[in-house]
Structure formats: C-alpha cells, structure tokens
C-alpha cells in the first residue's frame, strides 16, 4: 500500500516536512510513503484553466493522489488557517467534485507550528475542506506546538507523547486504508 505525504509548507527545512519524515519511520514495511514535492509548482486556480489537459503540476498531483491508498497531510498555520498554496492545490484536485481523486480516500491531518498550539485551527479547517471534497477524514490529531524545539538534530521528535500521537494517527489511517481496500474488493 502507498501513503502520499503532503507538507503544507514550501520551506525546505519545514517542520511539517520533518514531521512527515518521522511518520515515514512509523509505517510498517509493506506500506510505502511518497513525499509529494510538487506543491510550489501548482498554479493559482482559475476555472478557465481547469480544462484537459490539466496544467502538468495539477495532473501530477491528481495522479499521485489516485495512486495512493491514503494521504497524510502536515500543515502549518498561516493567519489562523490553512496555507493558501495548500488550499489552492486542494481546490484544483477537487474538480469535478463527483470524480475527484480524494473522493472516499482516507486522509489524516497533522500539523506543526512554532506557536503554542501546533496549527490546531488550520488542521480543523483543513479537515472541513477535505470533508467537503469528499475525502474520508480520519478522526485523529497531532499538534506539534513550539515546533522549533520539538525535533533533534537528526529530525526525530523529542517529545514522546507527540511520537505516540503520531503513531496513533498513522494507525488510524492504515485501518481506514485496509477497510477501504476490503470494501472495494
């Protein structure tokens, strides 16, 4: 099985990307994690551009989502909400709503921020957006607050309880992925 991991931050040294790399280590050996790196190339959504063939960056994201059995998104929080580029990418892939690649796809949302609350508002809004798109949003949360103090030099989480929450979120995602695989047989 495959998990597509999407970081809502474009910064190369992003704490959210670090969180995804920690998550990769928590997956069982038969589950592959693909770290999506095309977010910056997604153009601004324009209904008039939303035709076939889609812009290459959009087509690549749609294909990556279609190939994945589940999705793990780590988001920062900008002005109490979802980063614009992440929301923009989701707006692209959501069209048409009835056939979009996130439809019924298990998705878990986690987040990290340098503030105290670990992007909880952005995570909440992102779950709402994903539900409206038709994704199967997993009921789990990891909020890495003060993110600049939570990773060691090797990128590992220094907080044991956060590590446990991340493992629980991953396990909940895997459960939904396996359940869906059985339903689709």
């Amino acid at each position, binding site marked *: 099985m495959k998990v597509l991991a999407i970081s809502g931050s474009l910064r190369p040294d992003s704490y959210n990307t670090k969180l995804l790399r920690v998550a990769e280590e928590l997956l069982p050996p038969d589950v592959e994690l693909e770290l999506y790196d095309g977010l910056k190339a997604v153009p601004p959504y324009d209904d008039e551009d939303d035709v076939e063939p889609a812009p290459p960056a959009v087509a690549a994201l749609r294909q990556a989502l279609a190939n994945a059995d589940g999705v793990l998104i780590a988001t920062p929080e900008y002005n109490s909400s979802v980063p614009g580029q992440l929301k923009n990418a989701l707006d692209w892939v959501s069209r048409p*709503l*009835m056939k979009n690649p996130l*439809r*019924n796809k298990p998705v878990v949302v986690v987040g990290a921020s340098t503030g105290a609350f670990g992007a909880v508002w952005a995570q909440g809004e992102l779950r709402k957006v994903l*539900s*409206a798109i*038709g*994704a*199967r*949003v997993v009921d789990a949360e990891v909020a890495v607050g003060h993110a600049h103090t939570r990773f060691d030099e090797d990128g590992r989480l220094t907080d044991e309880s956060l590590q446990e929450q991340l493992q629980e979120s991953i396990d909940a995602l895997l459960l939904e992925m396996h*359940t*869906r695989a059985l*339903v*689709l047989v």
Partner: protein
Amino acid sequence: MSTTTDTQTALPVGTWTLDPIHSTIGFEVDYLGGTFRGQFRETEARLVAEGDSPVLTGSAKVASVDVKDENLNAHLQSPDFFDAERYPELSFESSEIANEGEEVVVRGGITIRGVEKPVELRGTISEPITDYTGRERIGLRLETTVDRTEFGVDWNAPLPDGNQALQNDVSLAAELYLVKEA
C-alpha cells in the same frame, strides 16, 4: 371521536412489486430556515401479502440520491453524509403491518449507514385498480421522521448565532406504486 385499531390487516392479497418510474422515495429536512428536499432515483420495494404475516421490504441506492445540484449530490454521497462507498443502500423491512382507523401502520427496521433502528411508518393504501394492461395496482403512501444523527449522519455547519444550519429530524416519504405479480 374514536380510533379503531385492527391488527388483522386488510391488505389486498398478493405479491406486489414496485413500479419504480411512478414511485418516489424522498426526504425533506429543515435547512437554513427552509425545507430542503431530495429523492433516491433507484429504488426497490415489495409487499408480500399472501398469508397472515404480510411483509413490506424496500431499498434505495445511495448513489442515486438526487437534489438540484450535482455538487450537493456528491456531498450527500460522501462520508460526510450517507457514505455511499461503504454503505451503498438504505433499506427497510417490516415486522408488522396493521390498520388503525383509516391509516395503515407499518412497523419495522430502517437501515441507514449500516445502522438499523426501529421505525413506525404511517400512511394510506388505496383499493386495487386494474391498469391498461390488465394488471392490478395499488398505491401505498407512507411517512415517518427519523433523527439522522442516530444513524451517524452528523454533518452540520454553525450559523452566526450559534445555532446549526441543518436540523436533525428528517422526514422520509415513500409514495409507492405497487403492481401485482402474475
């Protein structure tokens, strides 16, 4: 004024199957101060009234839910609402059919999102008529109200005043044309 209860059901004898073209299985729910309506286009129903224990069964395909906007159809089929992928059908099976005065009362279990709850449907049944092809037909109209949250259909959106946009009570109405099997 008195109401008579007659557990000896006076149903027209026979096995009756749904004419899906003329029948409607729909719902309505209060939303944003008005009433929002929809229906299921792919439906089945059967009334078996051959002996002492008549049974009414029915089902509707969730993927056939139909409201006035394609995107709303998609949302209603998603895990936020009926979750068509995991629970492709709504279904009903009666345990008892009785007459109470002018009404027909059908008790049984309704299953939505894989959750079965007891429910009582009330309505009317018409006398059989013979159609243009010589087949007997009856009309059965039944209604009930369910609390959607009891079935895990929990979606809502808060209004500025703190209330919720979508009410929990949903009226279900089945207007069934039933044709007697040969």
